[in-house]
């Protein structure tokens, strides 16, 4: 197995859960599994196309987003303001926080998922979504403030 293939396998084994959780807001948690499998299969087949610009993980994330968008029934473009679904949230485990997530604008919600559920740092979120790192930081700060506010309200009650 060549180095790039091994690196992809290592990435898959160490980051599988993050990929599935990060893609869940686009296609749902269960279908995200198939998207992750297909994305890594495509990345494996096309690994020679990875030019080393950016991290290997960010490159696979971009493929995964393409696969996820392609698998949706709706529009086939990555419109950050419309892609985020939250049907897979387990509201009963934390109703206030779940409601606060649902209340976030879709783009902010996606950034939250990529950061908190997929463990992606700002730089990679920016790379994956094609937005600036500053935009990621700002989106996350606003989302964090809104979510923490919901927790504070809950404790005050």
């Amino acid at each position, binding site marked *: 197995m060549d180095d790039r293939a091994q690196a992809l396998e290592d990435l898959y084994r160490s980051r599988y859960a993050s990929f599935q959780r990060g893609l869940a807001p686009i296609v749902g*948690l269960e279908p995200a599994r198939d998207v992750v499998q297909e994305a890594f299969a495509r990345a494996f087949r096309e690994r020679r196309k990875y030019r080393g610009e950016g991290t290997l993980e960010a490159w696979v994330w971009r493929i995964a987003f393409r696969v996820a968008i392609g698998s949706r029934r709706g529009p086939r473009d990555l419109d950050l303001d419309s892609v985020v679904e939250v049907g897979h949230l387990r509201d009963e485990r934390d109703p206030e926080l779940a409601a606060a997530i649902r209340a976030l604008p879709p783009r902010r919600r996606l950034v939250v998922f990529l950061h908190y559920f997929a463990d992606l740092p700002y730089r990679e979120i920016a790379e994956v979504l094609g937005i600036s790192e500053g935009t990621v930081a700002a989106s996350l700060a606003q989302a964090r403030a809104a979510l923490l506010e919901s927790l504070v309200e809950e404790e005050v009650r």
Partner: protein
Amino acid sequence: MTEDTLLAERLAPLVDAPAAPDWGDVTRRVRRARRRRALTTALVVVAAVVVAAPAFGLGRYAIDWLSADPAPDRVQLDFAQLGVGAPKGMDPGIVPNAARKVTVVTLSDGPHTLWVAPTKSGGFCVTWTGLWGGCRSRKAPAALPSPGSWDLRPWDLGMTLQQEHGATTRLGGSLLAPEAVRLVVDYEDGASDEIPFTWVSPPIDAAFYAFEIPTEHRAFGHRATSLRAVDANGEDVARASIPTPPPDELLVPQRLPDGTSVFLPRKALAAKAHRVTQLTTENGTHVAVWTLPTTDGGTCYVYNRGSGCPPLGYEQTEPMAASLASGSNPILLLAQVTPAVASVELRYEDGSTGRITPTDGFALTEVRPEHYPRGHRLKLVIALDRNGRELQRQTFDTSSTGTYPCEKPVDIGKGVMSCP
């Protein structure tokens, strides 16, 4: 606790644990796509159909090996590649140009073709398209673990399992018991299913099966528990248990105290993990070995390239068990040692040596890139007591391909690209 950490902890339970990873499925998808592409490009339609005649009754079919369709070149090449790069003594000795098509089984994702090739030693190798493959000899190896009290002739009942969430979803394999007329899978709830199988005449002289477990038998309390080959008198002639791990042994994503996300059994208490030893490799990778208590009083360990949870009551009998995490940079050596081991010495082919001191039963080091080329590789690891007396030595094969990374993989035979 920072606001960010607080939020992360509160958010985590809102999403269910993902399914277990399955790299085998990824590679199968790669192969499927390659085959689809090859077919499209060549505009070749393979319409060969094997007609399997029911021979002995429901579920058992017979194939005359000499009448079976020969395998096309691409399948013969797949078989030829199976033996390339095998460690010393492990080459199965496949006869690729004798490969034939045996049967087609349709599962939920479509048809899967079984190709079989004999080996020089009287065994055979198989490839199920899109499923699995492998080789086996007719004779059980001497090192085969003794069967459990319930298992019977386990070597004669080859079994490959695909499992998700602790339940078997597919199973397949080969059967070396010619007296068997039925193959039965039993479930936890007392139900059972009969598995169709195809008997192939000599020189293969074995039966093959691939089966998908019905959805209703993938839930706890209903899972597959065993496979039995039964003769015409209703007696078991071979049987083997199927693992049914309890819920607390299922792998779930957990977070170590430093924030690293890892897959560990549910019973492992990641929040109570203790970092035993750590290092930063030459390429900047941070490597750490952690031990974790489990809810049943045991201990697990985890590090960047693997993890394990020895069964309760397990005691390491050998002074040292060392393993090389290889294939990509960094190459790591992890040795689990008993308290008698005071240091571990590493010896390389070029005469250079290294020494590591274990911490809490673990010795970890990087095999640095200057030891990747042939002639410089790690060949021997020696466990020493506090007086420098040798307790145990463990050798490593320095000639096998694919162990050490390289700049440019080369063709090591039959088009297989690997680092020499």
